[in-house]
């Protein structure tokens, strides 16, 4: 479809979906630019998914490959599941950004560069032998829009007498303005944002607004671009939406669980990428009476949470893999003391310090088995940024209703990625029943089950008259909680702790299949691979392949129908951002021939990677 925009000689084309990647130096404001484009795109009504990607260093050397920061967004008029694989448009603010990201661009894709930054020094730093904008071959397969943004912004601001540094810093707004024009988006959200963010510095507000406008105007006037695009509103279920990042949704899920169920939220954390945001966000929710505690280390974070749980709070701690390693002894204490606790692991690349800002799903084994002794624990995983809300709520529900610690796995991709979120009806969230005891009714046995079904002991919190009792990490008598070295009792307690996890299966939804109840191939997944798997499976199904998807939120215990469902499928693959952790658990548990599709590069799966494997297994059509 093609029409002419009023007052312009340019064509307007309608597209179904677009993927844009903004890339530049860490100091170029690419994250901010991406977030602005996202906010505006959300309000336009497109479905979208985003993927920020930044270096672990706060400021790697300017112009270097290590210092490149990027933000990818896919937006569409139909439902989408991922931030897209190969971008249609690459905004490269400097030669390093072009170098790092060029190979991902789809052929014939559009490259927008700030030509001013393609000087000798920057080219050298980025390892270009010749200037790719001029060598006549590097970029032949692409559509190049090369703009001297620095000069154009400088001209737009010429009467303001601003230092060159400020001018250079406003070029990201020029790029944003240009893309707003190209994709027919309004600028008012961003203008409002600029006015609020730089409220105290009117000259910066003015500079950014003018740069934004200059970019927009450039698109309108330049001969280089002949077409602008429209991406229509996506058809999505009715309701109120907002754009949400995973860590944000997670924090809100925790607040909801406490707030709606009469519990005090105690949250402790120690700064660690990519989980710190949860601490930051909850620290701002003091008016919800959230108690946040920045502990002196990871161990203090989890043990203070255990103390708070003992004292009757909804206790939560969040960290990433290395921090989880430090917490493992204390997790055993929570298991032994049968206290409700939620420990969140926003996974990142490992081992050791690994790749702090890159995503991975490699801590499933750690969650399942990473403690001394027989120490089973409930494990959940969130599937999408918005799903972090529900999963957080669910983790709290299980912890409180079963008097048991729960590990919630998220990851860097979910934590800082975003998507539109259909705001939930909070009245429809399941009520969480706690087991606080206020009355002894005669003799009180702290380790007797107060809820047989849930195998939950009474939550007799300090301060309750006549229920004074002692608990601890030594093996304890199954009724009194007093220290016990009795052999039969130990056997009984080991069995009991395993049973406690097992009975959670009765209190969680059954697994469901997307696609056909039985098909040739099942793609089984957990966590953040959800979107890529869904996109791949849907695409393959459209082409006539017999393939279905089963995605797990509950990893321990599994939904009780999982074994039966798996047996319906002759072939099972499990895409995982690890070397096959769920795969091995599934094989061991159900004796099925599940095979891993592994990728551990620090990047999430592209749908195309999964689709290729599906086609490879089922044969070309």
């Amino acid at each position: 479809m093609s029409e002419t925009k009023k007052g312009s000689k340019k064509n307007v084309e309608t597209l179904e979906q677009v993927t844009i990647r903004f890339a530049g130096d860490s100091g170029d404001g690419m994250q901010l630019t991406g977030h602005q484009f996202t906010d505006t795109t959300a309000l336009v009504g497109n479905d979208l998914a985003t993927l920020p990607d930044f270096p672990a260093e706060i400021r790697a050397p300017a112009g270097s490959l290590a210092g490149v920061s990027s933000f990818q967004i896919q937006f569409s008029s139909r439902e989408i599941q991922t931030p897209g694989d190969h971008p249609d448009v690459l905004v490269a603010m400097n030669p390093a950004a072009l170098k790092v990201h060029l190979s991902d661009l789809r052929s014939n894709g559009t490259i927008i560069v700030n030509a001013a930054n393609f000087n000798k020094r920057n080219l050298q730093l980025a390892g270009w032998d010749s200037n790719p904008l001029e060598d006549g071959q590097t970029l032949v397969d692409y559509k190049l829009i090369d703009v001297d943004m620095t000069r154009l912004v400088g001209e737009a601001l010429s009467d303001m007498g601003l230092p060159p540094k400020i001018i250079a810093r406003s070029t990201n707004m020029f790029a944003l303005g240009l893309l707003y024009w190209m994709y027919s988006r309004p600028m008012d959200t961003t203008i409002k944002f600029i006015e609020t963010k730089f409220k105290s510095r009117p000259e910066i507000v003015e500079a950014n607004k003018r740069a934004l406008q200059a970019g927009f105007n450039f698109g309108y006037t330049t001969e280089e671009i002949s077409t602008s695009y429209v991406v229509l509103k996506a058809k999505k279920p009715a309701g109120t939406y907002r754009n949400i990042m995973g860590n944000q949704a997670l924090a809100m899920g925790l607040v909801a669980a406490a707030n709606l169920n009469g519990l005090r939220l105690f949250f402790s954390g120690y700064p660690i990428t990519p989980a710190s945001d949860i601490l930051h966000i909850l620290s701002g929710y003091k008016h919800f009476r959230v108690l946040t505690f920045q502990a002196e280390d990871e161990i203090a974070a989890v043990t203070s949470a255990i103390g708070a749980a003992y004292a009757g709070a909804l206790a939560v701690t969040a960290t990433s893999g290395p921090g989880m390693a430090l917490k493992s002894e204390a997790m055993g204490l929570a298991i032994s003391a049968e206290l409700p606790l939620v420990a969140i692991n926003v996974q990142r690349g490992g081992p050791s310090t690994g790749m702090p800002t890159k995503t991975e799903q490699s801590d499933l084994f750690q969650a399942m088995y990473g403690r001394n002794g027989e120490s089973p624990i409930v494990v959940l995983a969130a599937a999408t940024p918005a799903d972090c809300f529900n999963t957080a709520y669910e983790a709290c529900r299980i912890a409180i209703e079963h008097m048991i610690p729960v590990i919630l796995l998220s990851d860097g991709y979910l934590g800082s990625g975003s998507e539109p979120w259909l705001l939930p009806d909070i009245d429809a969230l399941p009520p969480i029943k706690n087991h606080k005891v206020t009355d002894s009714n005669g003799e009180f046995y702290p380790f007797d089950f107060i809820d047989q079904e849930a195998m939950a002991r009474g939550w007799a919190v300090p301060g309750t008259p006549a229920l004074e009792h002692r608990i601890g990490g030594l093996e304890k008598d199954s009724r009194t909680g007093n220290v016990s070295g009795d052999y039969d009792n130990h056997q009984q307690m080991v069995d009991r702790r395993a049973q406690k996890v097992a009975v959670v299966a009765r209190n969680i939804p059954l697994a469901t299949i997307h696609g056909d109840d039985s098909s040739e191939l099942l793609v089984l997944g957990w966590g953040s691979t959800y979107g890529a798997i869904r996109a791949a499976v849907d695409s393959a199904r459209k082409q006539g392949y017999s393939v279905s998807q089963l995605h797990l939120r509950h990893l321990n215990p599994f939904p009780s129908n999982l074994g039966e469902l798996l047996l319906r499928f002759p072939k099972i693959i499990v895409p995982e951002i690890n070397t096959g952790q769920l795969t091995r658990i599934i094989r061991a548990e159900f004796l099925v021939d599940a095979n891993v599709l592994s990728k551990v590069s620090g990047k999430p799966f592209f749908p195309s990677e999964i689709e290729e494997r599906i086609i490879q297994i089922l044969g070309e059509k």
Partner: protein
Amino acid sequence: MSVNTAEIEQPALKRKDFVSDQVIRWCPGCGDYSILAQVQKTFPELGHRKEQIVFISGIGCASRFPYYMNTYGFHTIHGRATTVATGVKLANPDLSVWVVTGDGDSLSIGANHLVHLLRRNLDINILLVNNRIYGLTKGQYSPTSEPGKKTKSTPFGSVDRPLNPPAFALGSAGTFIARSLDVEGKHLQKMLAAAYQHKGTSFLEIYQNCLIFNDNAFVDLSEKPHKLEHQLLLEDGQPMLFGEGHNKGIRMDGHRPVVVDLEQDGYSVDDIVVHDKSDKMLALMLSELTYMADFPTPLGIIYQEQQDTYEDLVHRQIEAAVQQLGKGDLQALLHEGHTWIVD
């Protein structure tokens, strides 16, 4: 925070109300028995409701303590009693929270947490039972063991320099630092009461004799007649006198303490330094005395100052936020920022 509600209208408690039904498993003659007895004797006098009292411990001989107290109790993991206690106190500031720990538990594996509890100044009482040895693991040297000490893990003598607990606490911005001795029942009771009354973190070091692995570590302090020569019993506002009939005292020679004999050296009581528990420099000097040859060991309140407690500040900030922003509204929270409607 209504700490005081716990202090009114309770039926009078007796010592036996604080005794649990558990058989005590310490070695016969262990100093811990006396410490437990003094705690159980002191508590009825403190007048705190029993259900509002929580004992939290880590790992070690002394850390079995909570099982023997008929209050709420949590025997946690090695070194972490202080952090568990922090969570308990933050979640419920009304509770009277007591940490029982040892020199290994709190000065080795848990030293980091001890620093941070002290500097935050939560109203938690720490009983640091110091026997200068690892007892439960059968006799290895500890961070407070003296240099040269021969133990199972140091058959040729320890080359570690020992840590000075009161100085450690001072350096961690502690607001109440005191010391007592397992066998000095009355003194210990007084210190326990003072620790309870202090609003802020109370750090009470209690020398304890481990007769199995480090017998007589404090014999100079515990047995007559030597003890008079070795105990410097501190009283706020009183001159630092010690010895038989208070015949000796500490005089400051510039910044240097010296022991003077009032009967022989020609000094009078007026020459003796007067204890001022709010004086940090003096407190540092007193902390060091323990490790200086020929000086007596200070017992009593070495240092005390009044500071806001962490839990008060935290809860006040929360209340201020509620005042300022209104009580959090979940629906509004979900809808904050940009939203759009699809119909």
